[in-house]
């Protein structure tokens, strides 16, 4: 998960921050743990998590679209 985040965002998460997020996501019911594999525990997004993620992505898409439109109107930049 940390490697994936670093690859697509360039941000290096530390384990404390990562598990703070995992704790909250699991409490919200947006992810669920899978059986442990060699002391590591994978997680899977739930149906509620997909819904929440979809809402966030839609919001980000709107913000991105507005930002791009406004940048396009700025001449000389």
């Amino acid at each position, binding site marked *: 998960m940390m490697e994936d985040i670093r690859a697509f965002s360039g941000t290096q998460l*530390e*384990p*404390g*921050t990562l598990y*703070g997020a995992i704790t*909250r996501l699991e409490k919200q019911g947006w992810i669920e743990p899978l059986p*442990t594999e*060699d*002391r*590591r525990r994978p997680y899977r997004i739930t149906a509620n998590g997909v819904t929440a993620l979809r809402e966030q992505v839609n919001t980000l898409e709107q913000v991105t679209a507005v930002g791009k439109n406004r940048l396009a109107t700025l001449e000389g930049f």
Partner: protein
Amino acid sequence: MQLLLRLYPQAWRERYEEEMLALLEEHQITPATVFDLLMGAIDANLHYNNCSEGVTFVVHRLRSGIVMIFCAFMLFGVGWSMLQRLADPTITFENTAKFHPELQILHNAVFIVGCSAFLAFLIGGLPLIVISAKRAIRMKQRDVLNPL
């Protein structure tokens, strides 16, 4: 690292310690990692102690405390400044100051330093107060001045 993880609450460790240790064994430990784990421990202790706001709870309480200290210092400063402007009724001091002007100088210096400290506190704390007040009004938080 295992020592650091002992700062996390028991319930958290029962659930996540093993996988966290496995992750830390493969992770390059830096000072940032240690600091991050400490912050995570504070957050986990608040989170698992029925305090769902976690670290933000601490930040809110800290902000309320600073606001309270600022208000108290302002009240003290106003009262102290007014007291300093009262004519010293002690004739003994006035007579002594005539013969030892350094006493009067020291007396004035205390007043000047006190006023400077009051102004410095006011200038430094006023933006914080304004921001806190705006946030409190916007988020309808009535306990901004309640540090307890």
